[in-house]
């Protein structure tokens, strides 16, 4: 009996809460853009959402968010749900099930763009003699391309990290990343890091690149392997989310003496930077969103860049690096401020980069805007 009463109460609570939530969000005829990410709770998710909210304040647009699972089917279901809500465009974090996603958007008359990562219009298959073959659906006018990370130049990260390692006088360095097929830039950064460090300090040794698949246990296994094979290792180049995976794994192995050169950023950076953390860095999420939003907004207003090549479908986003407390302060002020009008790209700058508002706007100009480094942003804000 008690359980039944609880059950009924829960149902009532549910209905009421649903009704309240729905009453709160009135339907308007604004442009609707859907955003799909694995979650909206980590730094990446909250920053993207925060910039979208800034855009809502400055454009006649409404964003809706859908958290999707990491498998293909969940991705498609999430996309369907967004299209069912009447989205005019969908921004996906990832290139999961890309061809089908584009086909579905085309059917629904909605634009589609990839936020975190570049996409390639062609593939080079063995059976076609490695000739470029158009990937199905990628030539659709509803597909607006992706965003190249690391400012289009992952090598710069490798060089910068090598400099940091050299400055700290590190001699024995391990490297751990995600598998190459999921994170190609990781290998590039590792290679340049190794080459650059060899130039700076020929006595320094960088061990072979180890990889793991996205779980804490597998990461821990790799870290343990590294520590066993090279007990005297001084630092780890943590390409596979250094802060989220590798730092805890080092802690669990009681090796807080091992320094960390990490890709990634979260709110522990501040405290760790005075300790074992030498570098951190992350995508400039504002720039990612801005690059995609400009393309969507122009496309919806029937505009396009005159100078954008047919196959030139990826925008650019920068990758700010933090190696000192001073840089961290700048990072907080200009990359992830609570008030985005003080951030990387203001609404004014954005409008200026759109053909809709500025007939002289160019694709090169947009990429320059969204590829700015921390220094350049700082200058722009000071002006």
């Amino acid at each position: 009996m008690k359980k039944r009463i609880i059950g009924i109460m829960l149902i009532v609570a549910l209905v009421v809460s649903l009704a309240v939530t729905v009453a709160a969000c009135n339907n308007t005829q604004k442009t609707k853009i859907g955003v799909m990410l694995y979650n909206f709770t980590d730094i990446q998710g909250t920053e993207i959402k925060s910039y979208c909210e800034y855009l809502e304040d400055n454009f006649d647009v409404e964003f809706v968010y859908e958290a999707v699972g990491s498998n293909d089917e969940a991705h498609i279901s999430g996309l369907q749900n967004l299209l069912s809500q009447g989205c005019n465009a969908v921004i996906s974090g990832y290139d999961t099930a890309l061809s089908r996603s584009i086909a579905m958007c085309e059917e629904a008359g909605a634009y589609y763009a990839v936020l975190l990562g570049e996409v390639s219009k062609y593939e080079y298959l063995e059976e076609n003699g490695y000739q470029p073959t158009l990937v199905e659906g990628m030539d659709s006018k509803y597909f607006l391309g992706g965003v190249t990370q690391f400012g289009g130049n992952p090598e710069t990260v490798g060089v910068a990290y090598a400099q940091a390692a050299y400055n700290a006088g590190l001699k024995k360095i391990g490297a751990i990343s995600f598998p190459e097929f999921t994170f190609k830039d990781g290998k590039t950064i590792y290679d340049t890091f190794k080459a650059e460090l060899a130039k700076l300090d020929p006595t320094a040794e960088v061990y072979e690149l180890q990889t793991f698949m996205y779980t804490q246990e597998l990461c821990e296994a790799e870290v343990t392997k590294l520590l066993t094979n090279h007990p005297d290792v001084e630092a780890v180049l943590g390409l596979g989310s250094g802060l989220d995976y590798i730092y805890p794994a080092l802690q669990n192995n009681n090796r807080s003496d091992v320094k960390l050169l990490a890709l990634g950023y979260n709110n522990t950076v501040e405290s760790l930077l005075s300790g074992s953390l030498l570098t951190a860095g992350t995508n400039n999420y504002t720039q990612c969103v801005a690059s995609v939003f400009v393309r969507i907004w122009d496309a919806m207003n029937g505009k396009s860049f005159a100078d954008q090549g047919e196959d030139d479908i990826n925008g650019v986003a920068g990758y700010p690096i933090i190696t000192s407390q001073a840089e961290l302060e700048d990072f907080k002020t200009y990359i992830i401020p609570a008030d985005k009008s003080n951030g990387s790209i203001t609404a004014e700058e954005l409008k200026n980069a759109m053909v809709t508002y500025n007939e002289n706007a160019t694709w090169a100009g947009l990429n320059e805007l969204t590829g700015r480094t921390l220094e350049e942003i700082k200058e722009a804000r000071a002006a």
Partner: protein
Amino acid sequence: MKTEKEKRVMVPAEAPVEETSETPKKRKISGADVWQFAKSQKNSLIRYGAFVLVLIVFAITTGGKLFSTYNLKTIVSQVTPLLIMSAGLIFVFAHGGMDISVGAVVGLCSLLSVYVLNDTGSVFLVLLTCIAVAVACYVINGGSSILFKIMSTISSLAIMFAARGIVTYNVSRTDETIRFTNSSLVKMFSDNYGFMVASCVIIVLICKVLFDYTKLGKQAKAIGDNPLGAAQSGANVNLIKMLCYIVAGVCVGIASVFAIARVGSVSENMGSGREMDVLIALILGGMSLSGGTKSKLSAAVIGSITYVLLSNGLSISGVPTNYISLVKGILFLVIVLLTLRQSKNIRELPR
């Protein structure tokens, strides 16, 4: 023939102790009767009630968008693979087995589908491959659990790792995405909603017959309740279990074709999470995961639809993403509390 029939019924000639109280006299239907009826049909009422409730709530909260043509198509395409899987796997759960490999098996089937379609261009071969692979997986799964008497959870765990391993390895071998080079070939499975509905109906009907009107289903359910009793009543327990796994395999194979056609490409995570979807769908449908004679195929149907409606409805009614899990959780808890309670009255028997 007539005498034969009479022999079968043994009426004790003159029972001295009359058991008169057994014949209930006809009464007028009173409120109490209705309440009694409702109580006896409690589980069905709750199952359909939950479904109707979800439907009504979302119809209101989405302002009718739930029933827009586009969204109906969406629902159909989301329900189809889940429903077919659940309808097959209910055979495994009914006999007291447990399966958590379905996601990985779907992944493996999807991977091979892509290879087969890209090489041969034959959808029929794709379907055949998927069924063959899924059946093989489930035969190994069921076979090892029966042969070595290990828990079916464990054997399905092994299959899960193996199948997922093959998928991950193949995906990692190449930089290019593994995808259909010509996805229009499988359009029937991805865009033909009539075909989807028809497939569901046909498969559910076949499963319904197998589950409720054949020896296979009846004995499987009896095994779920009491393997010893079922064996003493003539069930070949191992054979029946094996057949259940094969039915599950066929259904999962067919479902994989719909699943892969819907997404068009295979990543290392293809299908993962399906095992939970199926479990949740069956529970939402009022199925007791320990199996037994109370298992109903309608659990798979109602459960799958309710489950898809839940995610779809919550999403398009604009519930913030951060709350969706919470709301889903509450609803799930409510339904489970109401349907899966066990009665405490276990009678004592003399020693």
